[in-house]
């Protein structure tokens, strides 16, 4: 029996033992599934995995997307955007009386009912019957004088393209943004700053999960059997919270369950992004992070396939209201940098006409609120440069990045490859403000990926296996995995921004100005639609300016 299997067997036995003990002594969080926090073993760290493939066109990714579509209850707009079928986001004007609000809603919808206002929301969620189209109701409400904005709850998604790893050339990305010299300037690397990772959650603690997993059919109609009640081990990422660093986690919050569940990552994206921001460094293990001493705030707004199968979410991804609440939560709970490696496609002119399909005024309002509280926000620019999204065509506008470009203190970040060239997938447009390493396999193979520790998909994405091999996942096996995407570019900027804030630059608009002024100009001289102001330069930003130079 290999060492790994022995460790795995020990882990299962220990988790089971711990579960028995904990069931006697702890309160199980009431939810659609149960998470026993801090009950579980330390993760198994496999190191670098060289043979894992999740390219965008790979069989795994195609099947995963099909499975998501099969599990989803979302509606799809004429533009192709997915939005939640059971709700609508409405922001009434402050002066509108409750009676007028109800009258406006009755005029626009026959089934709409106000829900209890969710935490960290300055807007209302209107519950709708499945027979009504939220987009149509939103359009009816938009013309009313009582309404500031109304929109469907469009889905946002993580902007990652996971891919194969290669150990020999790990982390070309950090020298590319001049980080080694930046660490000389600021060896504290952001120790007093909290970075909120608004994402799929984070592997920030050990836990034991009990869930009843029902049967389902994938995108091809193939039935997967129910797994019944299973016990699933979950471990915090050693390179985020290991070696006594659990204290760096600040105010974790799961927006999807309104704080009922801990924001554990069942997908891997948020953990990978967090690693780029603040992976433990100088510990002779694994990879490094940009601002390796920052405090991390996991804010879960994107659900994964397992969230859906566990019964904790209705569909994968998040919706605009979830993201808006996540932004407000982070701003209200001490985060100073907000990383948003997520996005959605929409029209290019939401700034002048926010009452259009696919625009997200609720997120814009939340961003402005957060910036007003001193938060600097980083948004990935999108991965759709080569994609065609009807009716917006190829390289559609990334809605969140476009909002970012209109708010001083919020930046949108495109991706470059290891040769500082445009990464083939990185969305381009007038909204692109900065560039950072996002990686690319084209021309570089595995050498071109951005590497960080996250879950080994072989143990988590078991729903991609044939039904006969389908089994419960386990989230205690982590490895150094290569991803590409603007999701990977954004956290570079978030980490550098955290170091800038630690350096004393507390104004979000000033941070944006500095990052843009010190960026290394790429492409067409001056700002351009591909690279924005250029490749972020950590040393130049942190070193500041003299009188004459």
């Amino acid at each position, binding site marked *: 029996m290999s060492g790994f299997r022995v460790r795995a067997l020990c882990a299962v036995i220990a988790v089971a033992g711990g579960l028995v003990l904990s069931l006697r002594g702890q309160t199980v969080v009431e939810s659609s599934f149960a998470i026993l926090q801090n009950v579980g073993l330390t993760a198994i760290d496999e190191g670098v995995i060289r043979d894992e493939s999740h390219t965008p066109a790979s069989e795994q990714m195609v099947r995963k997307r099909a499975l998501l579509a099969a599990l989803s209850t979302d509606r799809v707009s004429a533009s192709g955007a997915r939005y939640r079928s059971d709700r609508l986001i409405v922001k009434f004007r402050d002066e509108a009386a409750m009676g007028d609000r109800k009258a406006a809603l009755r005029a626009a919808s026959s089934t709409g009912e106000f829900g209890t206002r969710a935490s960290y929301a300055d807007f209302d969620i209107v519950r709708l019957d499945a027979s009504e189209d939220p987009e149509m109701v939103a359009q009816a409400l938009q013309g009313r004088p009582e309404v500031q904005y109304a929109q469907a709850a469009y889905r946002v998604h993580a902007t990652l393209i996971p891919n194969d790893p290669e150990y020999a050339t790990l982390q070309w990305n950090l020298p590319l943004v001049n980080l080694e*010299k930046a660490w*000389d*300037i600021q060896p504290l690397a952001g120790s007093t700053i909290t970075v909120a990772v608004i994402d799929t959650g984070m592997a920030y603690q050990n836990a034991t999960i009990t869930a009843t997993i029902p049967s389902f059919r994938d995108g091809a109609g193939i039935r997967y059997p129910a797994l019944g009640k299973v016990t699933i081990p979950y471990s915090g990422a050693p390179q985020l919270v290991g070696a006594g660093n659990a204290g760096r986690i600040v105010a974790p919050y799961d927006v999807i369950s309104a704080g009922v569940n801990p924001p554990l990552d069942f997908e891997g994206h948020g953990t990978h992004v967090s690693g780029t921001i603040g992976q433990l460094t100088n510990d002779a293990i694994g990879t490094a992070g940009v601002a390796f001493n920052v405090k991390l705030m996991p804010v879960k707004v994107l659900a994964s396939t397992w969230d859906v199968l566990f019964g904790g979410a209705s569909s994968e991804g998040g919706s605009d209201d979830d993201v808006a609440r996540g932004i407000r939560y982070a701003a209200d709970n001490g985060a100073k940098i907000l990383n948003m490696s997520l996005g959605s496609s929409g029209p290019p002119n939401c700034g002048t006409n926010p009452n259009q399909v696919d625009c997200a005024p609720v997120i814009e309002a939340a961003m402005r609120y957060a910036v007003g509280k001193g938060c600097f926000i980083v948004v990935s620019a999108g991965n759709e440069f080569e994609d065609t999204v009807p009716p917006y065509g190829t390289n559609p506008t990334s809605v969140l990045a476009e909002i970012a470009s209109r708010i001083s203190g919020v930046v949108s970040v495109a991706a470059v490859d290891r040769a500082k060239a445009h990464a083939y997938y990185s969305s381009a447009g007038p909204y692109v403000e900065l560039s950072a390493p996002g990686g690319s396999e084209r021309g570089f193979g595995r050498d071109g990926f951005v590497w960080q520790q996250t879950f080994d998909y072989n143990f988590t994405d078991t729903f991609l296996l044939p039904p006969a091999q389908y089994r419960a996942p386990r989230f205690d096996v982590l490895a150094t995995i290569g991803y590409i995407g603007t999701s990977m570019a954004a956290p570079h900027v978030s980490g550098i921004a955290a170091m800038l804030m630690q350096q*004393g630059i507390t104004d979000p608009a000033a941070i944006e100005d500095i990052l843009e002024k010190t960026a290394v100009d790429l492409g067409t001289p001056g700002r351009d639609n591909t690279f924005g102001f250029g490749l972020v330069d950590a040393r130049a930003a942190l*070193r*500041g300016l*003299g*009188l*004459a130079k």
Partner: protein
Amino acid sequence: MKTTVLLVIGLVLAAPVLAQDPPPLSIRPFAMATGQSFAATQTFNATFGKTFFPFFGGGVQVVVHDTFFVEISASRFRQTGQRAYLNLGKVFQLGIPLTATVTPVEVTGGYRFRFKKFPAVRPYVAAGFGSYGYTETSSFAEPGDDVSTRHAGFVVNGGAEFRVHRWVGIAGDVQYSHVSGILGTAGVSQQAGESDLGGIAARVKVVVGR
């Protein structure tokens, strides 16, 4: 020591200034202390927290027939502050030490007025040009990061010299200088839109000679 004693004795025994005929050509060394308020106020405030600084130096005046004069002077200013950012009027100092040194070498020509009622007071005006050396060094610099340059500028000044002794005068004047080409193309000065390394200075000179 012997020379100093003889010089002091000579000064003490010298006839009163009014009793002297001015020589046709007088070469007069001087020492100078200057307080300058830099024109680039935002730039200097961002880096040093203030805009008024002392210079120290000296020079030589050549006076012809007690009226026309040519003066060459050199002085030096050196100050350590912090690298900084300026954004919409807000200053963010980064805690990274920066030392700036300004070394003006100025040549001026001017005219000394004479008042019959106050022969010991000699007002003067002058104008000229200068060569201004500027160095900027700071921590974490790499080759090419620090600045060492010299650019030309112009000066005008006016003041008065008070003859306190046959061989010693004290002069006070106000000088305006304008120095372009050093500030304004990069750094905080570019953010501030300031390109003049000159400013308004109050100078005090101790002049030795007739």
